[in-house]
Each structure stands twice: as C-alpha cells, then as structure tokens.
C-alpha cells in the first residue's frame, strides 16, 4: 500500500525550518515505502530543494512567484492546489507552525477531507497509519486514523526525529506553475518581537518565568541564561496577567504548548493550566522558593531557593560547562 506523500517545506529567514525535516521523516512513515515529495513555495526557494532531498525527500517541486514572498493563505493555497492537482497525492504533511495551522484547514476544506492537527507521533499499526496527538493541551492523548480519503496531518515541532542528513542523496527538482492572483489579505508590515530568533515552539531549551519573577526587569536574568543555553524565554499566565511580559510568551492550556529538551521553570508555582503546556518536556527543572510548590511534582530536578540568586549562578556555571565542552 505504498503512497505518494507531499511534505510542505517551510522557511524562516531564508532557511528551512527543522520541523520541515521532521515532517519529511513523518512522510517516510506515511508513504509506507512510496514516494515523499517535498514542496517549496516562495519567491526564491529552489536553492533549498537539495537540502530537503538530503533529509529524505525523493524529489522536490517548487512554486515560485514574487507574490509568494510573504505567506498569505490565498497565495499559498493557490500554489499548493496547483501541486495537488498535478500530483494527486495520497497524503499531505505540514509542520504545526503558525503557517501550517493557518493553511492546513483551508486546504482540507477545499479538498473536502479530514485533517489531523498537531500530531506528536506517527506509526504504522497493522498496516494502518496511526497519528498520536495531545488533547486538553497534553493532559491526555488520542490516537487518530483517517477513515475516508486523504492522509492529511500537521506535525508538532520537536517531536518526530528527523532523518540523518545524507549529502549523497539526489533527486529531481522541478517547478510547478500556478497563477497567483486575487489575494484578499495584504500584509502591510511585520513587527518582529522575538529578537533572539529562537521561537518557543521549536526551542530545545526554554527558561520560563512566573509571578516569582516579580517585574518586567525580573526577566533579564532569565534572558541571560537563555542566551547562554541558546534557548528561548517563556512565561506562565500569572506573569503575563501581571504585565511582566507579552502574552506571546505564555505557556499553558491558554497559550503555547511546548515540548523542549530542557524546561527550566523559575518562580512558577505549577498551576494545572500551566502544567498542561509544558509537562511533556523531556527534562524539567524547577526553581522556586516554596518547597511545597506543585511544579516540583513534575520536575526532574528541583532547587528550593530564590531565583534571583540561583539563576545568575546557573548562568555562570553553564558558561563554564559550555566553555569546557569546546
């Protein structure tokens, strides 16, 4: 039952995002021995095709148009539909990113198909492709299959292991033409808030602050630690509601659900709504003055102490560790 599966490659600042390689790996499983076709959409993306092939795509199709330089749902849908019409795939996979979340339901509606969003695993069970996805923000999980029609899913960043890059792989790269017109939403400006460029959903390390951070300035030591570890800064709802930081940093059942390799919770009590957003992180460290805080129940390692004392010490220690590992 080998299948033909399209995988949308997504770029950020001119580079392919990791989640696209993870989606290619998922595509390999979904294809069951069939073909994985990378799809690149943009104003100049064909130079990235080779990298997709090296990460496991069998061939790559590009759709290039100056109107595709910035993502719009109309433009990208027109481009992708041209590819779908040409290839008639059995499956489609996206990353569950801002773009993937925005575009996938539109394509599913156009094709009148189902869509399994935010999958954290894909497996073949008795010949059937089964997706695992969190529900109730990770308080529980479900296994979902497609009953009828196209195998269409988005995969959550940081959960599916990408394939080893193989620079000897080669494959065909060809372009698909699409007429991109009548865009009904026009992007006038983009204000970048995430200065360090590490996005929460893809970050391998997250340093999160709660009410214990006490102020906007209180986040500074957390930022310094995040810089040393190449991570991103997040926050609990308490910290956001108190205006210590922007809502875009919020992790929890309302807010982002994250699964980094390392999550360091600083001055976060561990309300159930926060735990839902981070408890599936691989390793959790809790730093809190209150030894009874619920966050210690989910933490792998805990330090009872004042975060303003502990964090700078940790930053220094990690600097030493990092320097020693070079």
């Amino acid at each position: 039952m080998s299948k033909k599966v399209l995988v949308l490659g997504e770029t950020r600042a001119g580079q392919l995002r990791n989640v696209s390689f993870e989606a290619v790996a998922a595509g390999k499983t979904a294809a069951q021995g069939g073909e994985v076709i990378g799809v690149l959409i943009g104003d100049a993306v064909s130079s990235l095709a080779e990298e997709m092939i090296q990460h496991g795509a069998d061939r790559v199709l590009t759709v290039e148009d100056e109107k595709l330089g910035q993502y719009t749902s109309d433009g990208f849908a027109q481009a992708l539909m041209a590819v779908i019409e040409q290839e008639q795939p059995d499956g489609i996979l996206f990353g569950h990113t801002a773009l993937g979340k925005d575009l996938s339901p539109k394509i599913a509606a156009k094709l009148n198909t189902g869509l399994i969003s935010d999958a954290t695993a894909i497996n073949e069970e008795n010949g059937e492709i089964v997706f695992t996805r969190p529900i109730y923000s990770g308080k529980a999980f479900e296994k979902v299959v497609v009953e009828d029609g196209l195998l269409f899913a988005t995969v959550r960043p940081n959960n599916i292991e990408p394939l080893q890059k193989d620079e000897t792989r080669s494959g065909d790269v060809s372009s698909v033409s699409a007429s991109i017109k009548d865009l009904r939403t026009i992007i006038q400006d983009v204000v970048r808030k995430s200065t360090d460029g590490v996005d929460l959903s893809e970050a391998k390390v997250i340093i999160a602050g709660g009410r214990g951070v006490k102020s906007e300035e209180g986040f500074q030591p957390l930022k310094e630690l995040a810089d040393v570890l190449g991570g991103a800064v997040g926050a609990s709802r308490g910290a956001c509601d108190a205006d210590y930081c922007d809502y875009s940093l919020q992790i929890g059942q309302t807010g982002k659900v994250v699964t980094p390799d390392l999550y360091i919770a600083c001055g976060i009590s561990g309300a159930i709504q926060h735990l839902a957003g981070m408890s599936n992180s691989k390793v959790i460290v809790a730093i809190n003055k209150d030894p009874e805080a619920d966050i210690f129940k989910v933490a792998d390692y805990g330090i009872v102490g004042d975060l303003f004392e502990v964090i700078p010490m940790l930053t220094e220690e990690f600097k030493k560790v990092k320097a020693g590992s070079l």
Partner: protein
Amino acid sequence: MNMYVLLKRTFDTEEKISISGGRIQEDGAEFIINPYDEYAVEEAIQLRDQHGGEVTVITVGSDESEKQLRTALAMGADKAVLINSEEDLDDGDQYTTAKILTEYLKDKEVDLILAGNVAIDGGSGQVGPRVAEGLGIPYVTTITDIEVNGSDVSVTRDVEGDSEKIKTSLPLLVTCQQGLNEPRYPSLPGIMKAKKKPLEELELDDLDLEEDDVASKTKTIDMYMPPEKAAGRVLEGDLSDQVKELATLLRSEAKVI
C-alpha cells in the same frame, strides 16, 4: 454590522482529565466557554457598540451548551443559536462541525465572523478557517487587534511572537488570540436580560443535512493518559553546590546540554 461568533463549550482549564472506557469522563466537571471564544464574544460586543449591528453566538453541541450560550448573551450578545447534533451524530470531527456551521451560515447576511483560534479541548484550530473557506470569504487567524472602517478592515495578527499588520475587507472571518481584549464578566442585569434573549434551537434536519453529509473523516481509536512522571529530585546542600550539581546532572545524566 452583522456578526456571528462561533463558540464551543469546553472543560474548565482547572479541571483534571480522566479517561474511562476510551472516553473523557465528564461527570461532575465544570464547563466554560472556550477561553479563546470568550475573546471573540467580547470583541464582537465592542465592535457592535462602536459600529452598531447585531451579535449572534452560535454553537454546535447538545442541550448542555445552552448554559455557555446564555453566558455569552449575559455578556451582551444579542441572539444565540444552538445547533443540537446530539441525536443525529455519535461522533463528529472538525470536518463535521465546520460543515454544519457553514450550512447554517451560507444564506445569512454575514459581515464578520469571530471565533477562537483554537479550542482548549480538541486543540485542532481548524473550524474557523474551514468555515471561511466553505463560505468563500477570507480569514485571518490569531488576531490581537482589529479595526473596522466601512468595509475596510485592519488586523494585527500574532505569528509566533511577531506581529503582522494586515489589510483586508468585509465579509471576513477572524480567529482570536490572547491579548485581543479582556473579556467582561456578565453583570447581574446582563444575566437577567439574557434569560429573555432569543435562543433558537435547530437540528440537522432544519439545515437539510443528513447524517452522511457530515460524517467525520477521521476517527479516534484510542485515548489515554500520559505516563505519570516519577517524582524528581530536589537537590540539597549549599546553594552553590546545588547549582554545580544541577549543571553536572543536566550534562551527564539527562544529557540535555
């Protein structure tokens, strides 16, 4: 402006989840308006107060969803529609819900549809964009600001922490992100008034839909709880020793740095 708000009844965020017989246990749980849908209700009320018009809240669910619709009416929405699919459908997916909503909305005069960007239970975030596509209107997801001027609309959209300023026009569907507004609590007079506001109840039959038209395209074959985490280690000793120990543990035991 004629506005519709797509609303879902969900578990309270403070509820613990348990599973029995492959289903989420609902007995005794508190239910709320999906928090992201609350932003949609609030924004619609504010836009109506500014531009005039009418706000209709609409949900696909069961009798029990009436409570959340009444709450939205108490906040200030004008009318509510409950599409009761309980008797016709055992299980639906996002395709099902979007199809039903699209069918209801297709012959309505719609200027603006507002929805939450995701529901905190199923977490798919599909229904809004699917409905917009079904109706053939544009959509903007995860908005943190909206200004309407005649038929011109300026929207700010949260994209993984960045903000996109977007120009578009009515008719339009938007999905709401945290930071858009601060939803109001229903006032006592609001709650009294809500009891008398119109709440229309429909079934699939009333929309000329058969069960087969909306049959789900995906199927949940299992539900389970994540494995319980074993209790972790709280470090002891001098703070400076703890910090050193932690760095070593993360490096050699957990191997995450």
